[in-house]
């Protein structure tokens, strides 16, 4: 039953169970009505029986009284010959008619079972009454001998009457027994039906409650699991039907959406945490990088202050050298601060692009020339390969191109020892290509994937080993994008790196054609 009702909706179950209970109830009511009908029939039969018995008694008495009267009159006629007056005769005839009417009335009571008996009685009484009527009509006609000795007829009529009475009683008993059996049967059916209705109702109610309760229990379990944070749990929709299945599906959908939302929030939080960690590390690196030139600036300044108080001649050459280191360190500090400001501007969307026509070949040459001291720092060799034939003017932001080349070049110098650094530039109608190639330490694929992110160096420890805030390449990448170009990196650990920048010669025409 449970398996059967499990496929039905709650509403269907309620309708089904109400229907079943109503059907049983209707059966009960009709059985009861049948019983009532039988009782009514029984009463009618009882009344008929009583009426018939009374009528039979009455008829028997009337017949006996009439015969008594006739026997008396017959004796008087023979002895006194006194005539019967008309009123007496009419009265006697009317009594005979009454008897006839009673016989007929008896005929209206009863049914097929007594018909034969009634017809025999009727035949007999008709004959008897005809003899008696004849007696009264011819009473004063003294010549006629009257047949009054109708004992045979009379006894015959009485016997027929007795037979009819018996027959009627027999039938009444038979009918009464049948009705009693019907009443007993309907009573039994009513009681059984009543008990059955109660039992079935109870069973159906229990099934309905248990099935509904089990469904609600499963929903509750699901809701509790969701509430306790287990959003991977799913309510089994296949066990439910109708509204409860809809509800279960809604619950499951809700849980799925919550899970997605929580995943989103968690991944956003992880991103935020990662960004926060990166910024903390960046601040530590910035702090480290600021302190390194500051150490030289403060240290040399204090030392000069001490030395200027010494007695005797000042070593002017030494002084000039020391002041030079202070200036160099101060400039290093400045460029670092500029990098940080640049990135901050880029991040807040305030970095402007100022397009103008200029000669990139000249600019690249100047940058490399200015940075040539870096090449010698780790005993490197420098090669500049500019395809002068192809190089013309371009419409771009020269200060940004300058910074791109500066950052790539100083990066190459920083990570290369006893190697070669090559800067190459060429141009076609649409694109300027500048590449900076080194034979330095190179990067793994994983490092390459992260190297353009702000605040990140290829490896946390390279900041310690090689210095730098990890801003240079992030700025280069951002500038390339702002100028409508791209940057490409090819690198192999221990072999070297090649950064290749492509910038549109004229953003308006190049990018329009693209």
């Amino acid at each position, binding site marked *: 039953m449970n398996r059967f009702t499990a496929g039905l909706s709650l509403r269907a179950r309620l309708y089904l169970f109400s229907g079943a209970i109503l059907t049983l109830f209707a059966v009960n009511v009709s059985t009861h009505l049948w019983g009532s009908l039988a009782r009514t029939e029984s009463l009618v039969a009882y009344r008929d029986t009583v009426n018939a018995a009374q009528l039979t008694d009455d008829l028997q008495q009337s017949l006996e009284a009439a015969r008594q009267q006739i026997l008396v009159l017959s004796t008087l006629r023979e002895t006194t010959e006194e005539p019967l007056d008309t009123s007496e005769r009419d009265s006697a005839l009317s009594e005979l008619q009454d008897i006839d009417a009673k016989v007929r009335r008896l005929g209206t009571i009863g049914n097929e079972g007594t018909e034969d008996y009634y017809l025999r009685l009727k035949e007999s009484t008709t004959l008897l009454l005809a003899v008696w009527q004849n007696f009264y009509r011819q009473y004063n006609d003294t010549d006629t001998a009257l047949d009054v000795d109708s004992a045979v007829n009379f006894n015959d009529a009485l016997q027929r009457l007795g037979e009819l009475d018996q027959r009627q009683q027999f039938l009444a008993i038979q009918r009464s027994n049948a009705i009693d059996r019907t009443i007993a049967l309907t009573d039994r059916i009513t009681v059984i039906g009543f008990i059955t209705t109660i039992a079935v109702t109870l069973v159906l109610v229990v099934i309905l409650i248990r099935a509904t309760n089990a469904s609600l229990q499963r929903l509750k379990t699901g809701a509790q699991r969701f509430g306790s944070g287990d959003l991977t749990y799913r309510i089994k929709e296949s066990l439910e039907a109708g509204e409860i299945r809809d509800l279960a599906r809604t619950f499951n959908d809700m849980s799925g959406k919550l899970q997605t939302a929580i995943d989103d929030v968690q991944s956003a939080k992880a991103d935020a945490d990662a960004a926060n960690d990166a910024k903390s590390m960046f601040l*530590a690196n910035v*702090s*480290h*990088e600021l*302190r*390194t030139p*500051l*150490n*030289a*600036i*403060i*240290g*040399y300044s*204090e*030392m000069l202050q*001490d*030395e200027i108080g010494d007695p005797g001649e000042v070593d002017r050459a030494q002084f000039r050298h020391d002041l030079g*280191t202070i200036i*160099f*360190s101060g400039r290093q500090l400045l460029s670092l601060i500029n990098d940080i400001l640049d990135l901050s501007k880029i991040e807040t969307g305030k970095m402007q692009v100022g397009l103008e026509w200029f000669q990139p070949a000249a600019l690249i040459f100047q940058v490399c020339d200015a940075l040539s001291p870096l090449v010698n720092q780790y005993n490197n060799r420098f090669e500049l390969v500019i395809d002068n034939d192809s190089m013309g003017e371009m419409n771009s932001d020269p200060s940004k191109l300058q910074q791109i080349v500066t950052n790539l070049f100083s990066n190459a110098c920083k990570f290369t020892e006893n190697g070669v650094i090559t800067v190459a530039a060429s141009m076609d109608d649409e694109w300027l290509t500048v590449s900076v190639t080194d034979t330095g330490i190179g990067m793994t694929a994983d490092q390459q994937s992260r190297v353009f992110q702000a605040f990140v160096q290829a490896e946390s420890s390279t900041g*310690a*080993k090689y210095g730098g805030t990890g801003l240079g390449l992030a700025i280069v990448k951002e500038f390339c994008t702002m100028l409508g170009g791209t940057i490409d990196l090819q690198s192999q650990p221990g072999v070297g790196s090649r950064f290749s920048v492509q910038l549109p010669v004229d953003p308006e025409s190049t990018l329009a054609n693209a």
Partner: protein
Amino acid sequence: MSAQHLSVLLVEDNALNRDMLSRRLDRAGFAVVLAEDGAQALEKMRDAKPDVVLLDMNLPIKDGWTVASEAKADAAIAAIPIIALTAHAMEADRQKALSAGCDDYATKPIDFPGLVAKIQGVLPS
């Protein structure tokens, strides 16, 4: 013990900082021995047996933390006090240096009188 009798091993890879600090220590009366990387530092500790080591942590070949822990593991030089010099200014960096075996810690930019006081402080009395 006066500065005149003390020898200091200064380990620093940055040429400017090495030049500056060695000259100031010299002026203050210390006998200065120089090293430019971690390997040199251990070598000079064993050879020169300085009274104190001023150790930059960001060194090529062998970094300062490795130098400190290897020095403390070598019985011949374990007793030489080491002061870490670094531009890493966070508390965690100080702890990292001390747990590597350094006896004290000074942050760049160097407060020179403070550094001299720290040198006096780490010497056995």
